[in-house]
């Protein structure tokens, strides 16, 4: 790492502090929007609670009162925010369990899946991106570019079922392979999730490489005698790195949405499944908790990515 002339660390600190304040505001906005949007668009949550049709109108009203849903919306909102600040996100309407518990017990599985998916995406995406960017119009380069395009275009639901189908078919030929199809096995879900993100990452790296390969500083480097091999590639690759890193950070947040489908297809527990079932069931407190969690992950990964990028590319430090 090259050290830069003026004092970068204090500037960096200011940048990060500004981002943190913005992040906190983002969280508050997310909580507020989620709170009102859910109630205004999805209606009365007791409708879903009582979807069996057995209750009379009076009984339905009694349940609303018992759950505190008869209070004015603003009063409910103030109580919710006050609780959230203390770390109390309320209780599930269906099970009366604390939302924090409900979310915590599903996070481990999603974290494992997202991490494995991110690693898969980083490996495949970098490979494809470098091949496509470096290979240019050669057959290899075009093939890599096409693969990246396919990986982006095909929805996770389709990739997942196809991968599961292929594994089931392969397992019919060679039974030991069946272990891959078991719910606890992470290989196929990670592959499904990783492939989807790798395409977009490959594009980012490819275009970064192509731009840099055309740039004047690379021409200068070549003029200085830096050969065409790996050294030149590193010269071109390094400036492409920050955008790849911020992209990966963005992708971490997007991976969470990818897990929704992946978890469903591979019958895995996790936050994605929890989100879908809670939305469909109208379990507002759980949905709000998940929105808050997603917003937290999103803002914190961005802050982190900005910091890391600043280290990877000294130009960004000066640009502040």
């Amino acid at each position: 790492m090259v050290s830069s002339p003026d004092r970068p660390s204090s500037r960096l600190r200011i940048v990060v502090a500004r981002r943190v304040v913005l992040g906190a505001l983002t969280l508050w906005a997310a909580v507020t929007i989620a709170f009102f949007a859910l109630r205004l668009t999805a209606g009365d949550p007791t409708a879903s609670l009582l979807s069996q049709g057995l209750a009379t109108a009076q009984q339905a009203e009694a349940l609303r009162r018992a759950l505190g849903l008869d209070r004015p919306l603003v009063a409910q909102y103030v109580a919710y925010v006050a609780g959230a600040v203390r770390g109390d996100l309320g209780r599930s309407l269906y099970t009366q369990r604390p939302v924090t518990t409900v979310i915590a017990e599903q996070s481990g599985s999603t974290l494992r899946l997202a991490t494995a998916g991110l690693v898969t995406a980083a490996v495949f995406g970098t490979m494809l991106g470098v091949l496509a960017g470096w290979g240019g119009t050669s057959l290899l380069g075009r093939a890599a570019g096409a693969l990246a395009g396919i990986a982006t275009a095909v929805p996770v639901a389709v990739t997942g079922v196809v991968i599961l189908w292929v594994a089931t078919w392969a397992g019919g030929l060679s039974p030991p392979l069946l272990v891959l199809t078991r719910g606890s096995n992470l290989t196929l879900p990670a592959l499904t999730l990783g492939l989807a993100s790798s395409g977009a990452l490959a594009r980012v790296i490819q275009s970064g490489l192509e731009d840099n390969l055309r740039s004047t500083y690379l021409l200068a480097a070549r003029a200085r005698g830096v050969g065409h091999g790996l050294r030149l590639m590193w010269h071109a690759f390094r400036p492409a790195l920050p955008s790849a890193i911020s992209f990966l950070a963005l992708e971490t947040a997007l991976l969470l949405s990818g897990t929704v489908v992946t978890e469903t297809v591979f019958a895995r527990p996790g936050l994605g499944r929890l989100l879908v079932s809670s939305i469909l069931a109208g379990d507002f407190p759980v949905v709000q908790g998940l929105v808050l969690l997603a917003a937290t992950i999103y803002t914190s990964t961005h802050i982190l990515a900005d910091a890391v990028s600043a280290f990877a590319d000294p130009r960004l430090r000066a640009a502040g």
Partner: protein
Amino acid sequence: MKTRLRRASLTLVLGATLAACAPPRGPTTITYGLTLSPTGIDPHLNASAELGIPLSSVYDTLVVQDPATGEILPHLAQSWDVSPDGRTYTFHLRDGVTFHDGTTFDAADVVANLEYTVDPDNHSQKAIFMLGPFEHAEAPDPRTVVIHLSEPFPPLLDSLAQVYLGIASPEALQTWGPAEYPFHQVGTGPYRFVEYVPNDHLTLERNPDYAWPPPIAVNRTAAVERIVFRFYVDPATRALALENGEADILGEIPPLDAARLDALPGFTLLPVPIPGQPTQFLFNVERAPTDDPNVRRALIQAVDRRAAVRTVFGEFSPVAEAPLSSNMWAFSDAAPFPAFDVRSAEAALEAAGWSTGDDGVRRKGSEVLSLRIVTPTWGSHPEVAQLLEAAWEAIGAQVEVEVAAGFGLLREARDRGEYHLIGLNFFGTDPDVLRPMFASDRLYNWSNVSDPELDRLLERAATTAVSQDERKRLYAEAALRIRDQSLILPIRDYVNLVVVSDRVDGLHFTYQGWFPLLIDLRPGSGSS
């Protein structure tokens, strides 16, 4: 290398010897696939039908139902008396029953369970309503329970046969409380609750002490050691889970997959009828043009329901001809809905003043014959709605379909009122399942019907001391009125397509339809 090889061959020999001595044994663990993640799994408090698939074998109920006829049979209660005014039920309980935690079952436990269910702080979503006009319960002696109602409620025995009113250990209820009890459930049934990891799995283990099977079971004690329930929410992956051996039993298999698996060696298809209302659309009788009964009747006639059912549900579902499914004791075949007849439909529309213009669209004056269908995402309603759209556009209507994801949004579409048809049906073993939808003052009167005679029939059948024969007559009359006013467009009797691998044998279901008698499962010929 050498040692390892020797050890391996020793294991082989040992294994072979052991296998020769022991009788052939099947899998001691089977996997049962569930098709949705229940929102909560306490039968006393939650409403999901899915929860009963495992838990109806963890709990015993006071009475059970004959799987074929729905007749009430003894279980934890060996006999019972109903007072002539229909407001007092006295149950005489079986002796020698113990909970999985070792405590002994007696009448006070039944009282404690009922009180837990109706406690307003526990927010019961289903069981409390199944108790109807429940007032209180008492245990005059350890073998007798008396339930007092504020008014007669003939569906009560049916309710008491459901897992939602299964008997839990009051000690466990008290120890854990409503939030944690679901993870530590204790009953008296043939299977013990082991663990539940939401969205992942639920495990049951055989109760070796079980010696009080219901009269509807074949086995006295369960034969399969362990049953693991996993959740296959995505319909596209269910057949795969059976094929790759991850699951042994799975329900709600899409019709095409079900037919394909049935043709494969190693799998059997069990179409299981589910009692309650058929897959159906309710007509909104307050909104033009469906406020005209002749228009509603014409619209029913314009739909080839037989072809629609075959297209969407395959060969397995019967075409629905009544507001109650044909496997219920209260079903009456006296009032089939109008058969497919486009010509009569068009003639009826003409007679009602809706004539076709040059553009092929029917109008009455300047008003266009336009229909708006609201459909939920589940139960293949959207696919059916598409066929309705085609059938009605063919006779000159303009049709719009709105799909509502989730019950909250369906309810919201209902509250806006801008629909002519809305898809909704309830499952249930007692014909009182009709009242929430067709009694004028009830929450799910989404057709907006207001027929004092229909109200009277439904009220009388469920809130007065009447015999089952009389109830049957009342429901037949109600069905006739629902048909004559064309309040619904019935599509098909709900059938759960269950596929079971030959690793498992003995699968059969209760009258309720969704719930298997796990006690009778045994390793099948395909197990190794």
